[in-house]
């Protein structure tokens, strides 16, 4: 019925090579490239968490940047104002994102399709509005600067670029592993079942709403995790982190990489991070190019990089993954 294909051998080899490169390359990269790679990993976590919603549940959200913001502001406020230790900041970031997702899920999951998009947009704006205007807590447009690098009580420091990169890589792999286990579990398979036919799953006796709700909370929590990483990486948090444009960009990462593939969106995230930062070096018209990438993705690669890759290697057209209206 619903099966997630096991990875074929050539893909295993491909992914193995990528992982190996990620592990051995840092000392050979310029530190600017390394910082972009770190960004790519962190946005990768955000994109994968969104993929759980978009790809596996068929619920495209326009407010996912809010969770990044919640995680990032937890770290920003706790470390700069209260000098909280990194584990506490991490825990608060995750719990806050989880709690907000739990509340928002109650509202958002009453709708599907275009209504779901709109409701998540409004909810995302609520969080953005707080960051923007609740100046006494968030310092508003000034943002919070001077967030220190994490101190995890381990024998080595993450202040320098390379150790922090490895920390991000571990965090990324951890998030990937968690999400992978979830989507491969019976629970994850029922999410896909719900995406394909809600009514069928209901007839089969599944509590469809509860499945979606749990999926929504997990996506938000992992999104918050990416925010925690982002605050530590950047040392700076501002409302710009959770603008509508960031939420749309996260959707682009998912679509560009390929929905319901987890790793696809991570690759999409890397592609966008590199595109934005490298193309802008060569031309001030990079916004134009980014716009063209948005349109090009939908026109030429509607199933994303992962889909195009499948087509390339197998010569088969992947099943279209449309969310229902």
């Amino acid at each position, binding site marked *: 019925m619903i099966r997630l294909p096991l990875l074929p051998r050539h893909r295993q080899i491909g992914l193995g090579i990528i992982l190996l490169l990620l592990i051995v390359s840092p000392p050979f990269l310029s530190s600017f490239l390394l910082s972009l790679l770190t960004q790519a990993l962190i946005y990768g976590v955000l994109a994968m968490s969104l993929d759980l919603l*978009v790809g596996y549940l068929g619920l*495209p959200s*326009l407010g996912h940047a809010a969770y990044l913001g919640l995680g990032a502001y937890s770290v920003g406020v706790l470390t700069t104002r209260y000098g909280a230790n990194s584990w506490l900041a991490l825990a608060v970031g995750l719990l806050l994102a989880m709690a907000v997702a739990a509340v928002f899920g*109650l*509202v958002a999951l*009453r*709708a599907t*399709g*275009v*209504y779901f*998009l*709109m*409701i998540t*947009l*409004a*909810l995302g*704006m*609520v969080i*953005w*509005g*707080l960051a*923007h*205007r*609740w*100046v*006494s807590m968030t310092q508003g447009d000034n943002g919070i600067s001077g967030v220190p690098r994490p101190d995890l009580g381990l024998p080595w420091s993450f202040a320098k670029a390379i150790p922090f990169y490895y920390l991000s890589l571990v965090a990324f792999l951890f998030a990937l592993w968690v999400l992978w286990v979830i989507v491969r579990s019976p629970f994850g398979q029922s999410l896909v079942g719900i995406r394909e036919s809600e009514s069928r799953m209901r007839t089969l006796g599944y509590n469809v709403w509860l499945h979606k709700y749990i999926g929504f909370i997990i996506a938000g929590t992992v999104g918050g995790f990416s925010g925690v990483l982002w605050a530590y990486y950047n040392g700076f948090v501002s409302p710009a982190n959770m*603008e*509508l*444009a960031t939420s*749309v960009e996260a*959707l*682009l990462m998912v*679509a560009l990489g390929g*929905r319901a593939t987890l790793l696809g969106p991570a690759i999409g995230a890397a592609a966008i991070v590199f595109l934005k930062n490298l193309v802008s070096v060569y031309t001030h*018209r990079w*916004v*134009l190019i*980014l*716009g*063209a*990438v*948005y*349109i*090009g*993705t*939908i*026109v030429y690669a*509607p199933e994303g990089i992962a889909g195009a890759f499948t087509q390339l290697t197998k010569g088969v057209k992947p099943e279209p993954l*449309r*969310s229902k*209206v």
Partner: protein
Amino acid sequence: MEFWVIQTFNGVSYGALLFLLAGGLSLIFGMMRIVNMTHGSYYLLGGYVGLTVIWGTGNFVLAILAGALVIALVGLGEYNTFLKRLSGQELGQVLTTMGFALIFQDLGLVIWGGEPYTIRTPAALSGSYQLGELYFPVYRVFIVMVAAAVAVVLWLVLERTRVGAMIRATVDDAEMARGVGINVPRISMGVFALGAFLAATAGVVAGGFVGVYPGADFEILPYAFVVVIVGGMGSLKGALIGSLMVGLLDNFGKAFFPELSYFTLFAPMAAILAIRPTGLFGRA
């Protein structure tokens, strides 16, 4: 007392501007279920075209009409070449329209430079009416009148004409409409162009009041969405009431709870949606 009168007037007039902006968007939602991220760009580009016409001719009315018409054509082009093919794919629509929004943003910068401008309005529309201690800016009264006129015309068209009946039928049930021989694609096209037309009108009108400047597109976009969400998609009445509510909430929110001013705007919205996921007047 004075405070309440003035703030209510301010809220209503800002709501009127939002109605111009979002009225068309609501119809687009209702009919095609398109989440149109380009809508803010129509508003901005409309303002820019209006600006060029003002510079060339000095005629404000011509600026509004030219801005609206040019942008209606732009919208039509975008719809016909890309969006039509994506019906039913929300994700595809969001990303495609976002792509257009970025492209328009950058083209605006290339063509008109990044300077902020205001559209010089006719002398008759500047200054204010004075009523005792109260001042009512003429331009705000003008915005309310334009919005009212547009609302009346739209209502007449929707309720009293054949085309209007076809639009309503399509909003209610596109399949059924197709079944009874309504040319749904053409109606959709027309409504999409109308949405762009109205957004551009709002852009020119707003140009005389908040200016035309890069960034206006994404600044105004959430407001347009919020109006549509609250009012309910596809409902003219909803868009009207939604605009007024958002205008008033925004105004009083900023006056009473400056620290929470956006929260007071978006949170009631979420509350409404929690009770009625399709908005106040929307149908699922």
